[in-house]
Each structure stands twice: as C-alpha cells, then as structure tokens.
C-alpha cells in the first residue's frame, strides 16, 4: 500500500514541475522570440552582425522599459495609453528649458520627472475617484499631451524639433547616464539596454518577491477581495500609475540623449506598442496575471521584428500585420490560461 502511494506521489510531483514551467506566463513569448530570432538570423546576414544586434537590442530597449512598467500596471488591473506621448513631453520639457531658457540641465531633468509623476498621479486620481475606466482617462491624457507637445513647442520655439542640445552646459554628464555607448567585445551596447535590463530585474523582483508585488497581483485579480484582506488598494494603483509615468520619463531621457534631439511628434502612433509587448509577454488585459520578464521578451520580439523587416528589405508595413497576428495569438493563449485557472469557479 505505502509503496504504491509513494510512487504515485513522485509522479505527480514530476508532472507538477513540468506543468509549472509551462504555466509560466512568459513561456509562449520566449518560444516566439526564439523562432523570430532564428528566422531573421538565417535569412539575413545583417541581423546577426554586431551592428545588427546592437540595432535591434537598442530598438527593443526603448519599448522594453515602457512595456515592463506598463505590464506592472496591467497586472494591477489598469491601463495607461498616455505614456507613449509622455516620452515626447518629458524630452521636450528638458529640450526647451535648456536650449531656449538656459535652465540647468539636471534641474530640467528633475522637473520633467516631477511633471511625469504628477500626470501619473492625476490619471490615477481621476480614474479611481470617479470610477471612469483608466482606458478613457489616459486616452484623454494622451490627446492632451500630444496636442501640447506640438502646439506648445511650436509656440515657444517656432519649430517642431529641438536643436542644439549638445551645446548645452552639462550635456556630457547627462549623456553619460542616458545616452552613452558601451563597448563589449567589439559590439556597441547603448546604455538604454542596461537600463532596460535593470528595470526588468527590479520590476520582476518587486512583483515576485515583495509584499508590494503580492498586492499588485491581488488588486488586479480581485479588487474587492484585496480590499477585504486589508490591502491599501488606492495607494497600490496610484503607485503603479506614477511608476509607469516615470518609465515614460526615463524613455524620454534615453531618446533625447541617445540622438541629441527630440521631435514634437515623438511617441505618435506608439500608444499601443507597449500594451502589445506586455500582452505578447503573457499579461492578461483584465489584470491579475502576467510577468515583467514576459513583457521584456515581448519588447524583444517587437524590436527584432521591427529591425529584422528592415534588414530583410521587406516593406515595413508588414510589421503591423505581423504584430496584429502575434497579438491575436497571444490573447487566445492567455484566454486559454485563464479558462484553465478559473473553469471551476
């Protein structure tokens, strides 16, 4: 009798471990990333060259920082569509303040961060107080920021792009942190890639290993239950909105100091790209499920595809078609996961 039951137990543990790996939200994205990598590496020569790799990694890193922060917000059950425009707004704030008014560069950077945090807090406050879905509130914020980016920049500078950033005093110190290029064994690594990895590691640690992370899952998964067990639900969501806006600011700085200029149209048409990265990385649109690493992998897919299509000399409109298909597949896989987890409730 005892031997039989032990054997059965062992087998269950084995299958449990296997199932646990398959159940991870990032597994599907990792498989897709591997396929895309293999495809472009074997069909184009440029994709695997050192210049090629650093190009698609750089491209991925900018999407990645937003996708990871956005994934946390989505796991917490909310959206922020305005964060793409925020990258432009914060870049423009620093650009205009320094080139037009001679403000200290670090002061401008900090003021831009404060601005981003207050927009995040305002988004959170309005949607939590009124119960209007954050989708709508941040859609409004997106239009406000995009409009302001163009109108105010034109009003103050007469053009739609900021020039002369590299002549600003203290530019080099800021460039070292946000825009420098490191060299690893002959490969140029933009510092934004380091930021992307750091943000992913920190976000993943917070999500899986801290109380805050547990609360984020709780708030997004079952709001009322979370409140019943004493989680400060409003604070958690407020923090998530502000962190997402801060990520928008970080990407704004990475872009500004990466190329030494900023356009008033920065972020236009990018509202959904980070949402796509997060969903492809295994986040549920309904909240309560997902992973920071998954979102980073989602961004890697986005970056590899974006640049891979250029290297393969295809018409770049294929990108949107491809991402659309990928998004649909990811949503269907996620739906299956959710059904499996909730089918007995």
């Amino acid at each position: 009798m005892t031997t039989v039951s032990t054997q059965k137990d062992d087998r269950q543990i084995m299958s449990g471990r296997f199932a646990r790996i398959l159940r991870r939200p990032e597994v599907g994205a990792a498989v897709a990333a591997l396929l895309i990598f293999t495809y472009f590496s074997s069909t184009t020569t440029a994709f695997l060259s050192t210049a090629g790799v650093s190009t698609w990694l750089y491209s991925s890193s900018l999407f990645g920082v937003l996708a990871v922060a956005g994934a946390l917000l989505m796991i917490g059950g909310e959206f922020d569509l305005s964060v793409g425009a925020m990258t432009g707004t914060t870049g423009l704030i620093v650009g205009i303040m320094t080139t037009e008014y001679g403000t200290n560069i670090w002061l401008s950077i900090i003021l831009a961060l404060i601005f981003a945090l207050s927009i995040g807090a305002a988004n959170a406050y309005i949607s939590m107080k009124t119960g209007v879905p954050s989708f709508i509130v941040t859609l409004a914020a997106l239009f406000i920021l995009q409009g302001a980016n163009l109108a105010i920049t034109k009003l103050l500078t007469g053009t739609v792009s900021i020039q002369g950033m590299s002549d600003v005093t203290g530019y080099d110190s800021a460039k070292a942190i946000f825009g420098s290029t490191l060299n690893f064994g002959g490969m140029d690594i933009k510092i934004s890639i380091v930021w992307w990895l750091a943000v992913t590691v920190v976000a993943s640690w917070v999500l899986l290993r801290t109380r805050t992370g547990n609360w984020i899952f709780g708030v997004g998964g079952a709001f009322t239950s979370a409140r019943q067990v004493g989680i400060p639900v409003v604070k958690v969501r407020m923090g998530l909105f502000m962190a997402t806006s801060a990520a928008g600011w970080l990407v704004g700085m990475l872009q500004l100091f990466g190329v030494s200029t900023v356009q008033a149209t920065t972020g236009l048409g990018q509202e959904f790209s980070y949402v796509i990265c997060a969903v492809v990385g295994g986040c549920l649109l309904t909240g309560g499920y997902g992973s920071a690493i998954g979102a980073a992998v989602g961004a890697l897919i986005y970056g590899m595809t974006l640049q891979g299509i250029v290297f393969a000399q295809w018409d770049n409109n294929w990108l949107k078609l491809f991402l659309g298909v990928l998004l649909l597949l990811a949503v269907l896989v996620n739906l299956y996961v959710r059904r499996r987890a909730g089918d007995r409730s």
Partner: protein
Amino acid sequence: MTEILSVTNVGKSYGTVLAIRGISAEVIAGEVLCILGDNGAGKSTLIKILSGVHAPSEGTMKVNGVETILSSPRDALDAGIATVYQDLAVVPLMPVWRNFFLGSELRKGFGIFKRLDTTAMRTIAKQQLAEMGISLRDVEQPIGTLSGGERQAVAIARAVYFGAKAIILDEPTSALGVKQASVVLKYIAKARDSGLGVVFITHNPNHAYPVGDKFLLLKLGASIGYFDKSELTIEKMTKLMAGADEMSTLATELERKPGSRPSRKSEKE
C-alpha cells in the same frame, strides 16, 4: 465549556425598521452554533452584529465573558472572531499560498531588501491546509483551480492560522452541490474538533442538523427557538422553519387534481 462570544436580547433597528429583536445565543469553543432562517429572517443583520460591522441597538454582547461592544470588523478580528464571507476574499488567478497570506505576508530582510519569506509561507500554507484535511500536491496552483469546497476550507484555515478563536461562516454551502457541501461540512467538523467556536449560517436544515450542536431558528427578525441538538429532530426543525401550516397549505395547492395530468403521447400523435 468556554464561552467565546454571546449575545443577550440583542436587537437592531435601521431607522424605524426593526431588523431583529430579542435574540440570545452563545458561541462555545469546540461547538457549532447553527443559525437558520429563510431569506429576510435577519440572518445577515445578526452576522453583522457578531462580526463587528454593526453595533446592536439594544441588548448586550459579551466577548470572552466580558461585556464589549465591537465597533469594527478589525475589533472583532483582534478579539479572535473572524468572518468568512460568501465570496471568500480570494484572488482566483493567484497561487494558493499567496492567497493564504494575502494582506498579511511574512517578510524577511531589512530596508529596501525586505522581501517575502516565500519558503516559510509555502510550508505553512501546505501544513495548515493538511491539518484541515486538504492535501494539495502543489500550493503553487491558482486557487481558482480548487473546488468550491476546498476554497472554503482554505478561507477557514487562513482565519484559524491568523488567530481566530471563533469563525463565522456566511452560507458556506449555499452555492455548492451536494457533494461539495458535504466536504465543507467535514471541514466545519474539523474546525470544531480543533477547539474552535463555529457559527454556521444556512437556510438548509439538512446541512445544519448533522454538524450543529445548538440551533437558533430565526423568522421575520425574531427567534422562534433556540435548541440544543438533544431537543430537536430534523423533521421538527424543518417544520418550524417553513411553518407547519404554510407547508400543508402549499402541499394542498401543489397537489394534482385527479385527471389533470396531460397525456404527452396523445398530443404528439
């Protein structure tokens, strides 16, 4: 016979509406108090008084033998009285162990490196559930994959682990099938055997009778009887609950008139 919680002649009015009146009952360690009543009998109001959501407008309440007024659910929890509501306050997509500790996480480390003590939480959750008689092969599985009865048991085990001496179960069996309901009854018996005072609210005499020690029957906000198990049979309880006269009237109403049975066969042909 340690009395954990008792109410004497309590009543509660909302404005001019008297929701319940003159109710007395006690919760004793190692016993199950069943509160039975139809919809609108005042069960929810009584739970709210016992769990500290509302203070009673009249009568007295004693916690551990001391006259007390519980002014919030937090007060009740601090006094060791935990309430398990129907929705159980769980997050379906989260693993069992994370749900077990949600809102009261164990942590280790200092400063910004303060982190979840995941090993301890997994071990404790597994062990506490095993004591309730649920052996999960994997506490990592989302709680949504457990059956309704098992989820109820996790909620009970959680309340017990966080120091409850009495637990109030709000209709734990009402949404469940026959088999699952009997599983929950087993967990209630288990909690009782471990020395907990249990308040079991239900409208089903068949669920209450086998597991209960004391029975409080409510109707239209008043007690229609407070019995020890020895004074009551399940038939008597059912009759009291439904009202014997009403039941016999209903039986007559529902009875078929002779010859009124339609013949399906002939209709089809």
